[in-house]
């Protein structure tokens, strides 16, 4: 009898010990993400430098979400309308949305957050066109702009412009919001141990539906190989910025899956049109013909990048491929160079290794293509801090002949990608590193931003792309891929073109 009881006790003990391994184990409900860098500060309005929308936007959300096609979709804002004169926007907010501290999301709260963004953010220039913000009633917001500005709705999808609880900001103090941010997102902030991890927990009252995951953790893995190994070892479930070569290997792993959603980051070879070597448009066109963009995408990026046929990004609002007449044609390139009197052109390209995905290999490929048409391109590698300062110098002192730069649209509208070729954006005032000036383009730029008729505006955007393709102030090379890899069991993910994850309330693990 006693021994039977003893056996029973032993069995019970064994059952306890091995319980976690049995089939009764609970469904996995913690998502761990491996990111290239830590969130510098958990407050998008005060965020500076690199930062991570995928994690921050789970806590606080923007008014609109940008679709992968660059269209503004209703989110915290249910609808919006631009007035006849184009200068007033009436925004209807979604009703019944609450911040996770229980306070309601009202027009007043949104106004407070937008103004806070305009006060602190280093990206505040994105809303510089806004003149005033008024809360009309509890769920109606009115924005007036200095001039008609068509891309405003898209701009509100920029993931820095999010809404935080006003009550929480007042409670913890404006400067300390990053220690306990409160928004209306699918997850609530638990802690941010700097350099180690960000931890979020489910917001069961989330307006778009109760999240299926209980916990989201984000950890920085700055080394690419270490990040990939962390996924393979199972330390993390999802990683960002996978190199294309590794992506091909990971895709063969039956437990993993690789995603390459479209991105708004484009890579351009800027040509300084005020330098003697590039003054003649035919030289710039020759370079375009000499480089086989499709082959670079295929060989260097294993097909994961997207060739550009306009300044891009491909898929952004207003993007058109119809004006790209630059097939790979070395013979034509040689002829154009001869006509321009520069049959053996030599120039230097500035470049920061490691800043853009595989940019070194891309430049070497370009160097090879140019060699075939008699052009010598020297590559000068400079650390980013140094190059960014040199490239910012005004035209008479700017040493840069050509530079490989990446650039990301903030609002999914092609306007934000091409406006920098306006002559008033010459460096250092803006990002026109080509020091390009074209009067028709400048005029169209002013008109396009104020255009109220979407059709007319699209026609103007198309003409502007045509001018840029014709004049070639830069070689518009390709859209950089954003490559994520995840466990196959992880479902319900979606991305926006700004390289961040959509709200994760539908994400879950399947067996």
């Amino acid at each position: 009898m006693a021994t039977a009881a003893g056996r029973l006790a032993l069995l019970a003990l064994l059952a306890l010990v091995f319980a976690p391994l049995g089939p009764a184990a609970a469904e996995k409900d913690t998502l761990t993400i491996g990111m290239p860098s830590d969130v510098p500060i958990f407050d998008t309005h005060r965020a500076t430098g690199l930062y991570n929308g995928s994690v921050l936007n789970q806590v606080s959300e923007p008014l609109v979400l940008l679709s992968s096609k660059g269209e503004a979709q209703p989110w915290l804002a249910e609808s919006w309308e631009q007035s006849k004169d184009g200068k007033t926007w009436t925004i209807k907010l979604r009703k019944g949305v609450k911040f996770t501290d229980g306070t309601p999301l009202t027009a007043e709260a949104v106004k407070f957050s937008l103004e806070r963004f305009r006060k602190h953010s280093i990206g505040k220039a994105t809303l510089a066109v806004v003149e005033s913000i008024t809360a009309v009633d509890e769920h109606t917001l009115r924005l007036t702009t200095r001039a008609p500005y068509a891309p405003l709705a898209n701009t509100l999808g920029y993931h820095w412009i999010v809404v935080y609880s006003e009550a929480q900001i007042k409670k913890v103090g404006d400067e300390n919001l990053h220690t306990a941010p409160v928004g209306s997102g699918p997850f609530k902030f638990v802690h941010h141990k700097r350099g180690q991890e960000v931890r979020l927990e489910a917001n069961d009252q989330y307006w778009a539906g109760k999240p299926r995951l209980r916990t989201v953790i984000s950890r920085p893995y700055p080394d690419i190989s270490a990040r990939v190994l962390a996924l393979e070892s199972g330390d993390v479930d999802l990683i960002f910025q996978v190199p294309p070569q590794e992506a091909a290997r990971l895709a063969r792993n039956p437990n993993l899956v690789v995603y390459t959603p479209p991105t708004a980051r484009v890579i351009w070879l800027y040509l300084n049109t005020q330098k003697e070597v590039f003054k003649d448009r035919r030289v710039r066109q020759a370079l375009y013909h000499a480089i086989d963009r499709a082959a670079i995408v295929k060989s260097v990026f294993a097909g994961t990048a997207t060739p550009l046929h306009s300044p891009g990004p491909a898929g952004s609002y207003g993007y058109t491929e119809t004006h790209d007449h630059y097939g790979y044609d070395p013979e034509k390139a040689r002829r154009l160079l001869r006509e321009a009197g520069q049959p053996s052109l030599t120039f230097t390209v500035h470049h920061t290794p490691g800043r853009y995905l595989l940019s070194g290999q891309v430049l070497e490929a370009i160097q090879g293509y140019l060699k075939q048409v008699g052009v010598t391109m020297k590559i000068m590698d400079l650390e980013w801090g140094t190059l960014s300062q040199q490239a910012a110098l005004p035209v008479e002192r700017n040493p840069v002949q050509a530079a490989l730069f990446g650039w990301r649209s903030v609002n999914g509208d092609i306007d934000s990608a091409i406006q920098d070729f306006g002559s008033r954006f010459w460096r250092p005032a803006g990002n026109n590193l080509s020091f390009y000036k074209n009067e028709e383009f400048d005029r169209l730029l002013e008109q396009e931003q104020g255009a109220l008729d979407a059709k007319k505006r699209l026609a103007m955007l198309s003409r502007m792309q045509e001018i840029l393709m014709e004049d070639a102030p830069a070689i518009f090379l390709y859209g950089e891929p954003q490559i994520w890899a995840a466990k196959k069991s992880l479902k319900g993910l979606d991305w926006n073109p700004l390289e961040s994850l959509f709200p994760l309330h539908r994400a879950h693990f399947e067996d």
Partner: protein
Amino acid sequence: MLRLCLTRCLAGVPALLLVTVLVFAVIRLIPGDPARLLAGDMATEETVAELRQRWQLDRPLPVQYAAYLERLARGDLGRSTATSLPVAGELAERFGRTLLLAAAAILVAATLGVLLGILSATRRGSGLDVVATVLALAGVSTPIFWSGLILILLFSVQLPWLPAGGTGGLSHLVLPAVSLGLFGAGVIARQTRSSMLETLGQEFVRTARAKGLAERAVVYKHALKNAMIPVVTVLADQFGRMLGGAILTETVFSWPGMGRYLIEAIAMRDYPVIQGIILVFASSFLVVNLLLDISYVLLDPRVQLE
């Protein structure tokens, strides 16, 4: 001893002051503008100008330096330009983790290195000596980013025993400490071997053997203590370097210590952070050197410190 500590600390003050001048000047001499780096893709001239003003980078350098020294005297290291958070808090946390990693790594390095060194010195020319020499050479010449990745591949991916990186419990410390320690062990093994060989050839060792002491006592009691001085010097030097942050190890193992902090700060030209880190680094070197001098006295009574 106490007087020694006090005088050395006082003598350290001008040295540290010199360090502040040098660092302050050098980081401003190298090209790059923190305001422009921070403003990034969004850079408008207005934003850049506003940031420069916010951090008072628009003021003359001597004025900036005076303001920096004044804050420093009050124990204020300023705020990071990249995150706008106070430097001191984060620096303390990062230094703590670097100290932990360095201590663990030096433990691995000293244990392995000294053992290996003694073994190959006492069995000079034997197969064991050859194996130990090859091992030490491999330790010194294996790049850390490679050995680190191999360790992760073996012990995190193939055999899921240890985490692939990050921080947390003791298990997170094992791989980075071993990876960093193996490198140090190689250097220490070589030093121990040559120092031991020299000592074993000296008169007093022959005397010890002649009076009939067991070989074990001769080696470990008499010879080892005398051979230790150069070894301790190498150890201290390594430890001092590690306190500056083992950049490669910290990167591969996602260990948020001082090394990565410094790299990130330099990339962003985050002046207050760079100044803070270098100051801590310089101070810890002073402390390690002081400890080294004290250890000489303990090891060799003939050494006088006054």
